[in-house]
């Protein structure tokens, strides 16, 4: 186990370095590098000035060297300055992380609270009417474009009914308690509907698979009630793939929901990354991408460890 974790941490670090190089190259290919912007802003600039500025910002150095420089600074906790917000990148990420976490945890919990009972309920009687109904709802959830869902939610609950705010966090008008929670309802509902479908299908699929196993038949044969069969034998085995799913989604708790946050002006990580990319804020985009990658990789690792903890038969190699 310890050896496995050690190996995986090592691999994760390697992937991070590779991804950081890829991301560095890609972000450098985005339009509007700092010098371009200065040229556009000041038509009187001469090519000598451009060369001098490039030297000043270190842009005359080869790509590899610039990336190594970035990497070294990043390892030492220095992600540079955000051009868009004129603040150090590290001070921007903290609050955004907290905001994303609030939103994602709420919708995660809600989605699971719906998907677990619904998926299990459907799986206990496959091909029945209730299975079809739940499956249909799950398919609808998987197929709905989340940004449109958010738009329709705004249209109905904010524009037409005036029940809920259309966006923001309510920090500006010092909303607290219920007042602050009101701002979370629409984004959380949108996120939940967008994810509950795949959760239901996942839970249902793994439960159906387990209910067909021989040990379930054995449990029934020894006279256990159906309830006992499900709770004592099926659930523990059926939930293992769900643990995997949770691990895979762990990253999204921190990297946020890009579309929903943008739509509802929720100042989380997803919106931060989006704004950084759109505004050609290289440093911020780099830091955001790296953070999103790191938490996703950690989530994958946690999924494997959780798997091992639930099922001792699993060999981690």
């Amino acid at each position, binding site marked *: 186990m310890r050896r496995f974790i050690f190996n995986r941490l090592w691999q994760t670090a390697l*992937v991070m370095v590779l991804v950081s190089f890829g991301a560095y190259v890609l972000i450098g290919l985005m339009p509007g590098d700092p010098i371009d912007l200065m040229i556009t802003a000041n038509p009187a600039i001469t090519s000598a000035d451009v060369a001098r500025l490039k030297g000043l910002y270190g842009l005359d150095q080869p790509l590899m060297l610039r990336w190594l420089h970035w990497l070294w600074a990043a390892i030492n906790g220095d992600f540079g300055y955000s051009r868009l917000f004129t603040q150090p990148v590290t001070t921007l990420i903290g609050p955004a992380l907290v905001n994303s976490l609030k939103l994602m945890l709420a919708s995660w919990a809600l989605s699971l609270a719906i998907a677990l009972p619904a998926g299990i309920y459907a799986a206990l009687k496959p091909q029945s009417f209730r299975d079809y109904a739940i499956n249909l709802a799950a398919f609808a959830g998987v197929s709905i474009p989340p940004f449109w869902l958010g738009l329709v939610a705004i249209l109905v609950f904010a524009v037409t009914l005036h029940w809920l705010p259309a966006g923001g966090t309510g920090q500006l008008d010092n909303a607290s308690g219920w007042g602050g929670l009101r701002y979370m309802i629409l984004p959380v509902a949108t996120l939940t509907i967008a994810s509950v479908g795949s959760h239901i299908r996942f839970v249902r699929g793994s439960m159906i698979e387990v209910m067909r196993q021989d040990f379930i038949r054995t449990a029934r044969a020894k006279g256990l009630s159906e309830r006992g069969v499900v709770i004592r034998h099926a659930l523990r085995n059926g939930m293992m793939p769900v643990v995997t799913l949770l691990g895979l989604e762990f990253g999204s708790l921190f990297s946020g929901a890009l579309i929903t946050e943008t739509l509802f002006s929720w100042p989380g990580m997803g919106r931060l990354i989006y704004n950084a990319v759109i505004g050609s804020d290289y440093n911020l985009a780099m830091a955001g991408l790296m953070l999103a990658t790191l938490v996703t990789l950690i989530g994958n690792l946690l999924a494997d460890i959780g798997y091992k903890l639930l099922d001792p038969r699993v*060999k*981690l190699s």
Partner: protein
Amino acid sequence: MTQPRKGSAGAHPRPKSASPWRLAAQRLSRHKLAWVSLLILVLFAVASLCAPVVAHFLGTDAQAVDLFSRYGPPGPGHPLGTDELGRDVLLRLLYGGQVSLMVGVSSALCAAVIGTIIGVIAGFRGGWIDSFLMRFTDGVISLPLLPLLIVLAAIDPGKLGIPRDIINGESFSLYRIILIIALFGWTTVARLVRAATLALREREFVMAARALGGGPVRIVMRHILPNVITPIIIATTLAVGNVILMESVLSFLGLGIQPPVPSWGNMLTHAQEFIWDAPLLALWPGLLIFITVIAVNFLGDGLQDALDPRADTDTMPETGQNDTQAAQWNDPRETTS
């Protein structure tokens, strides 16, 4: 003891006996949904291909701006009204359908080709090539998809040395989005094909072909590929829905299909601004995306049932790292929230 039948008989302790009629009805009702979905998709495809004809009858085209009739109500000249620039909404929906369907199908096909090549090479060659390719696949799967797609979509192709007149061409953003989405979409097919190839490689008919002197290319083309086509078809069908969703998301964010070419996604880009003036405008494109994607998903599900009845319960991963992606067909990553 025989294998429990699929359906209520095997999974319930005191099964009601399933009459042949009931079984048939169940199966039919399942596939009916797939048939209806196929019908809807064909209808959408035909309708969007007929866009020029409709334009001819309406006497306008999808990009004709008329600032005097912004947010026009539905009427004889404009069956679904006009948008924020006075363009005909019905026509833009039809042309947008062409774009969405084309991106969905071509990108899924590109991804299937990439995935098949990688999967066959990994499964057939084995050894370090296999482990390298599969580690690479794992790496791609574990990346945060949406942020990376957005960065890829935002890069300036001019900096890659592509001439400006190609970049500014109308269809450039179309090819670009197809390529970008395919670049990340091949992993499911690659893993399915690799697993199937590994199993097939040791089968007698492959060994016989090898003993008869068949080269690797011939064996792959004649004996391996025809036998792995079923999972490829199913995975690709299901991928089409995901691609359409992703295209609409990127276009919505202004990073996909570039105006004035309409797509269902970019018709909603400014929806938040005009939602107060013309709420219906925000409704149509999203509804069409929703219907298309759900139809594709039903079709994929039906195909899976019909072609590979055993597969829909194959959600159990085996062990360890390779299987963090547990669902075999549906990529559980939250890609578009």
